[in-house]
């Protein structure tokens, strides 16, 4: 990464500016993000993108997590990349359509579930055999599963009569899943970093017994452990994206499971450290909590951790 002319920091900065802009005009979120090129980083040059690897979208996803962007930005990026060159891909890239991914269900099973922002998205990827199909959400009825997040419910849909717009074969679908793993890891790392930074700022300003709360050793140690976990998670993802000395690529699964367990810890602790403030709807920490928990269940973090252990046992 660092050898390239564009540094990840520059991508993060550009993404940050675009996201702030989008948050000031919530109705135009998709357009603003598309115009800023956030969906195009990892799309092939031939198809209108910047032609960079998925690792260059990492700062975008991380910044989105940190700034609590409420838009399926990870889904949009990986769908635009996977469907580059198709009509749907072009629409996703340019911001004419919003895409989401159903992490449960399949065409065969007849339902799709755990699709973020499905009630407002236009297209949804759903498993289909060993590949996946992009379906037109206008062709099905989406029910909101608002239990965890009334403002940004997950979606559930019966798939009878679903109109398929495009397909991914097994290899392409596997590639997309790897991209999803990477970018969600980045997104939740960003969420953790944001929660940590908000907490550190808050506790530096909040006064008790004549000193800032950040002077208390218990508070300092909580923040230190949040920092440690987040640094480890970020370094783990960074490493997963680099080849080893023998030019072999690395597995990315632990980058996601590690990012998720850290982010749950950090965001929950951040709420705790904010005291009563942390428990209010006004303070936006709970958005990150919901986002992180939704990703955790959608990507089945517990089952993935178990699979990582089983794979290690089998290989030993």
């Amino acid at each position: 990464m660092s050898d390239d002319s564009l540094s990840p920091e520059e991508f993060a900065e550009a993404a940050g500016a675009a996201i702030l802009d989008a948050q000031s005009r919530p109705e135009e979120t998709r357009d603003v993000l598309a115009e800023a090129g956030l969906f195009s980083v990892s799309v092939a040059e031939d198809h209108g993108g910047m032609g960079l690897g998925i690792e260059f979208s990492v700062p975008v996803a991380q910044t989105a997590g940190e700034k609590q962007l409420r838009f399926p930005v990870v889904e949009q990026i990986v769908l635009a990349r996977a469907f580059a060159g198709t009509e749907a891909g072009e629409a996703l890239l340019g911001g004419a359509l919003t895409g989401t991914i159903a992490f449960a269900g399949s065409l065969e099973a007849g339902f799709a579930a755990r699709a973020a922002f499905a009630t407002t998205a236009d297209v949804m990827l759903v498993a289909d055999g060993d590949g996946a199909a992009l379906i037109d959400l206008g062709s099905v009825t989406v029910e909101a599963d608002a239990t965890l997040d009334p403002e940004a419910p997950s979606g559930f849909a019966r798939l009878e009569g679903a109109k398929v717009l495009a397909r991914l074969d097994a290899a392409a679908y596997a590639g997309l899943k790897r991209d999803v793993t990477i970018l969600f890891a980045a997104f939740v790392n960003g969420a953790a970093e944001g929660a940590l930074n908000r907490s550190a700022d808050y506790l530096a300003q909040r006064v008790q017994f004549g000193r800032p709360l950040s002077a208390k050793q218990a508070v300092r140690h909580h923040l230190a452990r949040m920092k440690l976990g987040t640094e480890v998670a970020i370094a783990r993802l960074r490493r997963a994206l680099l080849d080893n000395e023998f030019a072999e690529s690395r597995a990315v699964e632990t980058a996601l499971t590690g990012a998720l367990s850290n982010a749950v810890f950090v965001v929950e602790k951040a709420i705790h450290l904010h005291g009563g403030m942390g428990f209010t709807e006004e303070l936006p920490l709970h958005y990150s909590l919901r986002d992180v928990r939704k990703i955790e269940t959608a990507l089945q973090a517990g089952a993935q951790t178990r699979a990582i252990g089983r794979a290690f046992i089998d290989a030993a």
Partner: protein
Amino acid sequence: MSFDTNVTLPDPATDRGAFRAHARKWLAENLPSTLQADSLDFKYPSLDEARVWEAAMHKAGLWGMTWPKEYGGHGLTLREHLAVNKEVGAVLMPESVGSIGKELAGPVIMAVGTEAQKNHFLPNILTMSHMWCQGFSEPEAGSDLARLRTRAVQQEDGSWRINGQKIWTSGAAKADYCLLLTRTGTVADKHRGMLMFAVPMNTPGIRVVNIKSIDGKDSFAEVFFDDVVVADDARLGAPDEGWSAAIRVLSIERATNRMYRPWRFEAELKFLVKALKSDPDLAVKLEDADVQKRIGQIVTEIDGLKGLIERAVDQMMGGAPIGARGSLSKLSWSETHQSFMGFAYEMISTVTPLNSPLAQRAKKHFTTAYLFARAETIYAGTSEVQCDIIAQRILNLPTELKA
């Protein structure tokens, strides 16, 4: 709703189990399924429904066990209070909407109030005729009461003029009275000059602004007091005196309020397991070693909490001071339940869609409970405050070199 309140309470002296058996039987016969979170009929009650239900509970001997009969109580002991709480905990009814009155204002008034105040306030608390809210916390004070700014100034006619702002005031919008903590001097006086009032919430100058909590409810409010004038008979105790007496009451309350918690947690765990069993995709997870072990740990933690509470009751019945031991239960129950709710949320969320109605009900319950549980390590003194208290007052750890 109407309930059987034509009840003769058993005499606990003749049969140790009688009171608990009574509570169990009455709840089995009277608690409507709409008030049970593990029932498919469950519906969060309106304020009026909750008042009617709690008033009936009181008449049936399930509230006010330890309050003197002259003030509407049942004149019994903490042991009956505990016995009832075990049965109240065993059913998943909503939390009391009158707990500020019954567990905070009532005991304070009992300790420092005048006879007239006791006669006026105490029975109305138990019959749910008066709703109370608590006005202690302030935006800039947190747990540092020395920073409390709400000020009460006595006027020539003996009345008091109150100015200030309170926060985290649960149920302020529906309360009839506020148990209000003020200072009579300046902030520089720190802990001196603290004074409590029973302020009617319809007094001119009071403004309530609800605050939404992350579980989507109006869980608490900010309350502004702008030149609020109350008569001198709204004062609870003398300056200083009242507050220090109240502090003692509150430390007992911290150890004895909502004693039903571990029995309630056990009922929640049963609900969770039943819900998991009801959906085949979830039921298989109950075979996993990690799930069985985690449930075993939660059962163990619940038993520990029960032990803490039963021991505290025995000690208080034996006349021992409770001291700072309420901090042990607060820290313990809040972290046990917070972590249990994280587990429950994760378990019930692993499968989607859920086809069993009971599992769907449980998903709603535990998702909300998971979010709400974020507050449990915060309110009534954060975990850090409890640890500070345990270190200071139970372990007596020195902060300075001994001379």
